[in-house]
């Protein structure tokens, strides 16, 4: 059990500044996910916490202790790697026991812990095998087992599920979550998959170009993205964006673009007042759109042409064109529309997002 504190953490390689001034507190027993596109610095941050990467500047504390100069072995952490990193010349049992042997645990204690971990993960039958005789999912379990036998203070996960096929990934995701509830160990998890981030994290840290974009609970990131990048990264299908002009008429602000004229909801009026006459980016999630009925107010609806229909069973994704903008709408599965048909879409005014066109920050 431990708290991890990153303070103004930086990593510079010869020419790239991989991690820039990261400040982050990971609370005791918390499951924090670092997510972002490749090259955003998330893995480098994790490796610095692990002690595998030198810190250019800044500080890492585990509990109250500064660990900057501690070798990995003295940090009391365990790490699960993307390619499992099982020792090929050792049996599953020895793989799991290695960390304990290195730490000079008594033989029966090692045995007890390995059996216990194997029970939790359901790999008792595999203990005598070699890694190459295991399937991908089994290897992943062994890698997890190797981490949990140690009862470390912090778990580090570096994209542990990305080498698994889609079905197994979903299954292991659930198991990881269950495991975390059971073990209650502080965990830092790196992934590029926003679904994994949202489903696993108590809190999610979105990174891009070495900078932390936003830290928050999954629904907070989804509902109140701090900037355009977070808005586009979180959620699938991704949020729709349109360049609009903010125009004032009769004391009310409107967002206008070709084929689009939407009244800005009262809550946002004040914030957008200083953008009157300027351009901003309007964001609306596919699930905030639906096919309009007669009851929908005209100032929260727009006309569009259907270009692609993607029926998924529980929902239908409509790719429509409104003016110059391509928009995805997530609509009721009972909706019957055809390609090239004109359709009127209504949007939920409470779920509109506005972003500064230059800084890309949320307004």
């Amino acid at each position, binding site marked *: 059990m431990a708290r991890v504190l990153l303070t103004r953490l930086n990593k510079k390689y010869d020419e790239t500044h991989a991690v820039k001034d990261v400040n982050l507190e990971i609370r005791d027993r918390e499951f924090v996910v670092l997510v972002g596109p490749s090259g955003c610095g998330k893995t480098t941050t994790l490796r610095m916490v692990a*002690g595998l990467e030198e810190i250019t500047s800044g500080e890492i504390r585990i509990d109250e202790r500064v660990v900057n100069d501690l070798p990995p072995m003295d940090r009391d*952490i365990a*790490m699960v790697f*993307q390619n499992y990193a099982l*020792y*090929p010349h050792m049996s599953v049992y020895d793989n799991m026991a290695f960390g304990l042997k290195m730490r000079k645990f008594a033989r029966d204690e090692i045995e007890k812990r390995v059996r216990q971990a194997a029970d939790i993960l359901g790999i008792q039958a595999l203990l005598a095998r070699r890694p190459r005789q295991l399937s991908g999912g089994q290897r992943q379990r062994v890698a997890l087992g*190797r981490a949990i036998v140690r009862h470390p203070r912090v778990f580090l996960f570096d994209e542990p599920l990305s080498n698994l096929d889609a079905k197994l990934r979903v299954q292991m995701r659930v198991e990881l979550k269950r495991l975390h509830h059971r073990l209650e160990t502080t965990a830092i998890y790196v992934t590029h998959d926003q679904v994994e981030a949202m489903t696993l994290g108590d809190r999610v840290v979105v990174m891009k170009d070495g900078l932390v974009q936003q830290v928050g609970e999954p629904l907070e990131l989804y509902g109140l993205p701090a900037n355009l990048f977070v808005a586009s990264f979180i959620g699938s299908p991704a949020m729709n964006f349109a360049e609009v002009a903010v125009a004032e008429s009769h004391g009310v602000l409107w967002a206008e673009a070709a084929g689009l004229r939407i009244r800005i909801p009262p809550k946002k009026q004040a914030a957008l007042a200083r953008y009157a006459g300027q351009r901003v980016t309007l964001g609306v999630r596919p699930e905030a759109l639906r096919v309009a009925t007669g009851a929908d107010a005209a100032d929260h609806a727009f006309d569009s042409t259907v270009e692609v229909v993607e029926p998924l069973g529980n929902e239908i994704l409509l790719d429509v064109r409104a003016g110059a903008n391509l928009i995805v709408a997530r609509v009721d599965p009972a909706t019957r529309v055809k390609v090239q048909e004109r359709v009127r879409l209504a949007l939920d005014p409470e779920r509109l997002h506005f972003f500064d066109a230059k800084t890309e920050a949320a307004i």
Partner: protein
Amino acid sequence: MIEGAKWRKWLWFYLPLAMFILGLLFPFYWMVVTTLRPDGELYRPWNHAQYAPFWTSDPTLDHVKNLIQETLFGVWMWNTMLIALVATLISLLCGVIAGYALARLRFRYAGLLGTGIFITYLVPQTLLFIPLAEIIRNYRIGDTPWALILTYPTFLIPFCTWLMMGYFKTIPKELEECARIDGATRWQAMLYIIFPIAVPGILSAGIFAFTLSWNEFIYALVFLSSPEQKTVPVGVVSELIRGDVFYWGPLMAGALLGSIPVAFVYSFFVEHYVAGMTGSVKG
């Protein structure tokens, strides 16, 4: 169609393969036949009625007896074995550690150093033996096994280093990182994780180094002079070719017996050696 395919396979696969094998094995065959052939048959002119160069009707072990009793062949074998083994061990030790450092540790000029080591390997021995002879004379180790034990590593270490560097690079870095997180120091991670995985690479480097030292000729010829210090390749040639007289029987017997240990080493480690050449196991 199927008939045609079979015919093609014979022409393009089995035939070239057979020729290749024949070409490779013929010298060995010739060596064996010459060893077993009595002198009378050996020096029979080509137009003799019973001229039969490719087999013998009257095999004998006279040449082998002659070689062992008349020359210091046993001593040469012992010398060669000792020198090859010690030189190989020294080179392996240095090569494995240097290869690991060049493949894994990030330090300035690592790439440059790797290339530098490779270039030293490219300098031909026929050039190097001249300055080396000077050094050996200065240290007064000429005509002792040390002259070779200490000079063979000059070409074996670069060779082993380069080979091991390539092999270490195929072992995923995460294995070692994981070991270090698991509580191993860098040395322990090397010892318990990386070296056991690198055994095929180490073995093939060792086999090659051993063979190179076993067959080495120039240094052995230049640095050793007394018959009881010589190695097999030099001993056989210098003691069994006298002027323009070639004692073909004992010469071939010496070559045959001399190649047995190498053949034995190869066949013993063949599986590891193939793995070492084709890359490591996947984690």
